[in-house]
C-alpha cells in the first residue's frame, strides 16, 4: 500500500485527540467525584439517579416532618401525663373528702386544691409548640379551654373547649401521611378527645366537669355524691387519660418506626445512587494509567515514524 506524508503526519492526530479526550473525561470524573456529568454520559444511569435523588429528598423531608410532629406530640404527651398525675391527686383528694370525720378547714383546703388543679389542667390547653396550641385542633392560635365563673363566687364553674375538631397530618414516608394532632375535645367531631371525650353522642369523659362536680360536692359536704358519682367518674377519667397517653404513644411509636424505616431506605438509596453516579477512584485511576500508557506509546511511535525520511540518507 502506498502511504502519503499526509497519512503519516495527519493520521495520528485523531488518535491523539481521542486518547487525550478520554483522559480529560476521567480527570473530570475524578475532580467532580461523579461519573455522570452530562445525561449523555449515561442516560439510563442519569434516569435512575434522578429517581433516587427525588426519593432521598422526600425521605429527608419526611424525617424533618416527623421531627416537627414528634416535637408537638412530645408536648402533648407531657401535658397529658401531668394531667394524669393531677387526676390521680384529685382522686386521692376525693377519697379524703369522702371521710365523714373531715373538718371544715380540711374540706376547704381540699376545695381550694381542687380549684387550683382545675386551673392548672385547663391551662394545659395553652401548651404550644412553635407557637401552635397543641390541643385546639386547627385553631392553633387560641388556647384550647376557657374557664368561666358563671355564679360569680370566685370559683370556676365551667371549662369550655374553644378549639375546633379538625385534625392535622403530615407525610411521614413517601406518599404516606399520618394524623398526629391530639384534640382537647371531640364533642363536635373527631374520634377521640383527651380532656373531653364523647362517644355515641354521650359525654364519656370531661375531666373539668368531674373536678367541678367534686369540688361542689366537697363544698356542700355531699358525701354520697363524692363516693357514688365523683370517685367512679374520676376513675373513668384516669382510665381515659391513660388511654390518651397510649394513643399519643402509639402515634409516636408509628413515627419512630417511620424514622427507622426512612433512614434504612435512605441509606440503601444513597448506596444505589453512589453506585450509579459516583466515580470509583480506584477504577478511574487504573483506566487513566492505561490511557496514559497508550497515549505515551502513540506519541513515541508517531514521533519515530514522522522522523524517518529519505532526506537523511541522501547527499
Amino acid at each position, binding site marked *: 500500500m502506498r502511504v502519503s506524508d499526509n497519512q503519516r503526519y495527519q493520521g495520528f492526530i485523531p488518535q491523539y485527540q481521542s486518547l487525550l479526550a478520554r483522559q480529560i473525561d476521567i480527570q473530570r470524573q475524578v475532580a467532580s467525584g461523579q461519573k455522570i456529568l452530562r445525561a449523555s*454520559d449515561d442516560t439510563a444511569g442519569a434516569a435512575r439517579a434522578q429517581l433516587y435523588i427525588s426519593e432521598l429528598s422526600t425521605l429527608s423531608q419526611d424525617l424533618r416532618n416527623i421531627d416537627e410532629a414528634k416535637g408537638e406530640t412530645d408536648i402533648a404527651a407531657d401535658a397529658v401525663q401531668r394531667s394524669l398525675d393531677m387526676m390521680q391527686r384529685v382522686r386521692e383528694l376525693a377519697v379524703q373528702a369522702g371521710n365523714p370525720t373531715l373538718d371544715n378547714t380540711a374540706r376547704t383546703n381540699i376545695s381550694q386544691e381542687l380549684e387550683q388543679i382545675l386551673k392548672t389542667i385547663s391551662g394545659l390547653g395553652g401548651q404550644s409548640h412553635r407557637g401552635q396550641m397543641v390541643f385546639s385542633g386547627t385553631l392553633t392560635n387560641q388556647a384550647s379551654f376557657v374557664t368561666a365563673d358563671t355564679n360569680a363566687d370566685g370559683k370556676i364553674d365551667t371549662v369550655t373547649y374553644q378549639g375546633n375538631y379538625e385534625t392535622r397530618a403530615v407525610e411521614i414516608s413517601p406518599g404516606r401521611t399520618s394524623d398526629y394532632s391530639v384534640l382537647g375535645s371531640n364533642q363536635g367531631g373527631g374520634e377521640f378527645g383527651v380532656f373531653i371525650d364523647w362517644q355515641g353522642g354521650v359525654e364519656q369523659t370531661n375531666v373539668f366537669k368531674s373536678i367541678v362536680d367534686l369540688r361542689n360536692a366537697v363544698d356542700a359536704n355531699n358525701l354520697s355524691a363524692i363516693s357514688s358519682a365523683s370517685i367512679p367518674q374520676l376513675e373513668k377519667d384516669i382510665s381515659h387519660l391513660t388511654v390518651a397517653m397510649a394513643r399519643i404513644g402509639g402515634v409516636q411509636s408509628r413515627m419512630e418506626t417511620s424514622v427507622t424505616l426512612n433512614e434504612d431506605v435512605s441509606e440503601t438509596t444513597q448506596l444505589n445512587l453512589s453506585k450509579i453516579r459516583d466515580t470509583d477512584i480506584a477504577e478511574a485511576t487504573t483506566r487513566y494509567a492505561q490511557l496514559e500508557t497508550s497515549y505515551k506509546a502513540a506519541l513515541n511511535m508517531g514521533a519515530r515514524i514522522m522522523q524517518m525520511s529519505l532526506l537523511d540518507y541522501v547527499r
Partner: protein
Amino acid sequence: MITTNAILDTGVRGLRAFQIALSVTSHNVTNASTPGYTRQRAALSTTLPLPHAPGMIGTGVEVVSVERMRMPTLDQIVRTETSQLGRWDQSASANGVLETMFGDPTDGAIGHALTEFWNAWQDLTTAPGDQGARSVVLQRALSLVDTIRDASTRLDRTNTGQNQALTGYVNDANSYISGIALLNQEISRAELGGQKANDLRDRRDLLIEKLSDLTDLTAVEQPNGMVDIDVGGQSLVSGITSTPLTAVLNPATNHVEVQIGGAPLAFTSGRFQGFVETFANIDSTRSGLNTLAAAIVGEVNAVHSAGYDLTDSTGVNFFSTSGVAGQEAATIDLDAAVKGNPSKIAASSSGPPTPVGNSANALKLALLRDKKAIGGATLNEAFGNIVLDLGSKSRESLQRREDYASAVQAVVEQRDAISGVNMDEEISNMLNFQRAYEAASRVITAVDEMMDRIINRTGRVGI
C-alpha cells in the same frame, strides 16, 4: 540513416522531459501540505521512432501530459461521508450546549427548585400559621419561577446563537458556490487546449468538499470540464452560473431557514440538516418546558384556589394565569395577590374563618409532587424526561459523529494513499530525473565531441 543531429535532438528532448519532470516533482514537494492538493506526475513517453534498417531507431522521450493522481469515485464517497459528518457534528455540538443548559443531569436546576418547592409546602404543613414558613414557600416558588424563566431565556439565547451560526454557514456556502462557478469558467478556458487544469481542479474539488460539509449535494462533471452542483433537485451551480442561498428568519418559528429563490431548501444531510434537527430539538425542549410550566401553574392553582388563606379568602390562584399560551415557561409568575404576601397562601382546607392551624391544603399541594400530572409522569419526572431526552439525543449524535469521523478519516486516507504526496517517493523521483538529466546532458556532450572530431579534426593530418 541516423544523423548526428538526430542523436543530439534525442538528448535535448531528454533534457526537456526531465526538466519538466523535475519541475513536477518540485511542485509536488512544495505542495505536500497544501489542503486539497493532488499529487501530479509527468507522464513520460517515447517519441516517434525513425524507420531504419535493421530496425526502428528511437528518438528519445517527451512529457505527453502532467497527470493528476485522483480517483473520482473516492471523491464521491468522501463528499457523502463528509456531509453526514457535518450533520452529526452540528447536532452533537448543539445538543451538548442544550443538555448542559439544565445543569446536573441527575438533579438539574429546575428539578432541584421543584423539589425545594414541594419541601417548602411540607414544612408549611407542620407550621401553617408561621409567617416564616409561609415566606419560605413564596421564596421557593419565586426561585422555581426564576429557574424556569431562566431556562427559557437560555433556550432563546441558544436559538439566537444557532440562527447566527446558520447565517454564517450560508454565507460560507455562497462563497463556495460562487467560487465553484468561477473555477468552472477558468477550468473550461484553461482546458480548451486539451490539457487538464490540475491545480484549478484541486481548488474546485476542495470547495465542493467544503460545500458537502454543509449540505448533501450532487456534483456532475460536464464534457466541457465544468461541474454542476444540485441540492434537493435545485441547481446551485450550473456551468458558470451560481444561485446563492439565502438565510431567512421565519417569524413563525423564530428559526433561520435556508432558502433558494425564496423557497425553503430540503436537506438530507450536511450541517444544514444538523441545524434543522437542532431547531427541532430546541422546539421540543421549549414545548416540554412550556408543558411543565403550564402543568405546574394548573395543578398548583387548582388545589390552592380551593383552599383558604389567613385573610379568610378562597379562590385565590398561587401562580398568575396571565401567562401567554405557547410561552408558559417564559411568562410563569406568582399571582399578584400572593406575591410578597405570605398571608394569602391558602394552606387551609376549611374556612371561613380560616383555622390558622389547618394545613390540609398545604399537604395536598406538597403531595402534588407524586401526582402523575403530565402523561403518566410527575412534574419532577417530566422535567427529568426533558433532560434525559436531550441526553439521549446528544449521546446518539456524539456516537454518530464519532462513527462518521472514522469513516471520513478512513476514506480520506484511501484517497491520500493515491493522491497524497510522499516525500521519499518524490526524492527518489528527483534523484532519478536528476541522473537522467545528467545522462542526457552527457549524450549531448558525446555528440558534441563526435561533431568536434568530424568537423575540426577529420582530414587535417599532420597539423
